């Protein structure tokens, strides 16, 4: 019987704290929704087909085959259309600057991969040799690289009859590609598929893609959590008040906290970064490490400020703890940490721009995987600085609203 009274008391107490109730029921729904959005739509790689000379005859069947392949979607690349002298039989010599132009288009994010059917492919095959198809991949997302490689091989197999007799030319049957042909049905073996990477290489693994973003994740997560709890403790214990009434300038107080947390944060960065560097396959320069440390410090400042905002909004340590998943979960789902936001409704993609980890992950991947200099990632750095200022402005405003002194304890 006593158990019932205790159960009743527990129910009453929880029901009178709307936050806890919301927490109980809203968080699972939100998480399930985000997982659904993230996984409901498969990732699709955008593939452009570029041809030169008589390979035009193969380009259209290839595009048709790619349109039916899984995980890829053909995209037009008008900038890489052959110039008048490079069509049909006229094209006998290659274009020396074609490869850099293709790579530049990938760098501009016009496609995730480009398949090049060069001018000598058809003559090669007519001479009885298999020839080669070069696939240029952006490379920083191993998932997409894998999709592209599979799709190109699949498409090549499907269009085997066209490949067998390229001189016949002409587009493949509309929307109905030829059935897959066993390799032996072609007189000449299928062309060799060569992969060229804008970023990384064939040794580049999925884990290489994920590891670097763990640095901003840990920096943000732990600094945020520790600062939230620390400030909350200082407030409820009354020690913050005692600091406020001491003849110490606010700047010194803020600077003191920043320095204190920086020490821990930098030690953590050293450990996490060391671990990452030990595990990734690609080489990392000292300059990249320095840039990563700088970004980590900026992110730490943001985490510190957000922690302050949260601890001032929470009335108790329990509430402060409830805020932690509220700040962390959306960033896990929406910051491109695990999933791209391609499958999410537009509102989510806008919202993601407000999350510090979105920008920190982008900078980290740009730095390490795409080997861009730090300053080239300035839009993301600017966004991070803006988020920091926004958090500080909120704190200043809240400080003023509460009488310019310590918040009511």
């Amino acid at each position, binding site marked *: 019987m006593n158990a019932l009274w205790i159960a009743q008391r527990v129910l009453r107490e929880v029901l009178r704290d709307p936050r806890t109730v919301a927490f109980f029921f809203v968080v699972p729904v939100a998480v399930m929704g985000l997982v659904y959005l993230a996984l409901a739509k498969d990732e699709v790689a955008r593939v452009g087909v570029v041809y030169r000379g008589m390979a035009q005859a193969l380009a259209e069947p290839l595009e048709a085959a790619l349109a039916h392949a899984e995980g890829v979607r053909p995209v037009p690349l008008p900038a890489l259309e052959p110039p008048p002298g490079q069509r049909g039989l006229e094209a006998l010599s290659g274009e020396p600057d074609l490869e850099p132009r293709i790579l530049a288009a990938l760098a501009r994010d016009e496609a995730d991969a480009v398949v090049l059917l060069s001018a000598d492919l058809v003559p090669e095959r007519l001479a009885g040799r298999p020839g080669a198809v070069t696939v240029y991949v952006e490379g920083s997302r191993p998932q997409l690289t894998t999709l592209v490689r599979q799709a190109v091989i699949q498409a090549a197999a499907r269009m085997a009859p066209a490949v067998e007799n390229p001189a016949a030319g002409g587009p493949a049957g509309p929307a109905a590609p030829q059935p897959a042909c066993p390799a032996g049905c072609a007189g000449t073996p299928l062309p060799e598929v060569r992969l060229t990477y804008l970023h990384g290489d064939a040794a580049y693994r999925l884990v290489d893609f994920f590891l670097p973003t763990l640095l901003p994740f840990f920096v943000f997560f732990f600094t945020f959590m520790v600062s939230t709890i620390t400030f909350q403790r200082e407030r*409820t*214990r009354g020690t913050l008040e005692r600091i406020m009434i*001491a*003849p110490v300038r606010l700047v010194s107080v803020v600077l003191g906290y920043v320095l204190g947390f920086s020490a821990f944060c930098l030690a953590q960065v050293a450990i996490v970064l060391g671990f990452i560097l030990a595990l990734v396959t690609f080489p990392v320069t000292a300059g990249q490490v320095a840039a990563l440390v700088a970004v980590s410090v900026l992110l730490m400042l943001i985490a510190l400020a957000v922690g302050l905002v949260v601890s001032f909004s929470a009335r108790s340590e329990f509430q402060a703890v409830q805020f932690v998943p509220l700040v962390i979960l959306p960033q896990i789902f929406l910051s491109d940490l695990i999933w791209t936001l391609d499958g999410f409704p537009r509102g989510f993609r806008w919202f993601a721009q407000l999350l510090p980890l979105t920008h920190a992950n982008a900078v980290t991947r740009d730095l390490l995987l795409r080997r861009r200099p730090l300053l080239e990632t300035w839009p993301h750095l600017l966004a991070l600085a803006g988020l920091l200022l926004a958090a500080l402005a909120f704190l200043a405003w809240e400080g003023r609203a509460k009488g310019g002194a310590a918040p009511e304890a």
Partner: protein
Amino acid sequence: MISVEGVVKRYRGRVAVDGLTLHIPAGRIFGILGPNGAGKTSLLRMTMGLLRPDEGRIRLFGNLAPGAPGTMRRIGYMPQHVALYESLSVQENVEFFGRLYGLRGAHLKRRTEEVLERVDLWERRALPAGQLSGGMMRRAMLASAVVHGPELLILDEPTAGVDPLLRLKFWDWFAWLADEGVTLLITTHHISEAEGCQEVFFQRSGRILERGAPRALIERYRAHDLEAAFVAATAVQDESPAAAAGDNVGDGAAKDSAAKDSAAGDRAGPGEPAATAGGGRP
């Protein structure tokens, strides 16, 4: 030393301090006595510059505003609730607060030892504050409030939850501090313990009802102790607010608003005002 003029503080419509006027000269020990919810803590927090009065004015040390850097250095404050860093040792706590007030090096060491000796904690200086007993925590709080040698020491319910023997000891320490030339302002709801004060103020419902030397108040109300005098003063005010305020509290501001005050006092009610209650965590 402290001059409070017509100060009003409201929390979400509830009046915690209601047109309070109070003058405290440099001297020994002054007590603000009153029940829970009388607005004592709000008054102290405004004096410290932690809260801004909605109306009225507070000046310290002549004409300095609360919260000005020049004022802060000269005040020591012992809050009602334990405000120590639990994982730091007693000595580290006292030294930290000493450093905040600009104490350095040998001077800091000497002062730390002095104040910890005084509250009988020097032997236990290496203990983490979180492992202290309730009484020891209060002593460590007192030590860290006076380490920088303030001219004015404000103590909010310093003896709340302290056993009677230690309470007596606390009053010995207060007397010692007063001998050293510190002016002490102490709030308490243990009214009888305040007989050691030079002068006491009875505060109730955000107003000062009565002031005077403990002995004089006991005689005035023909009471046998201060607590009885307080009860009597309260009864007089309840019967005739205008008379109580006008005759006994030597300030003009109280007089003309006495009737209104009484009504406002009822509104504030016996319960603790919101923010004061919020501070009341264990």
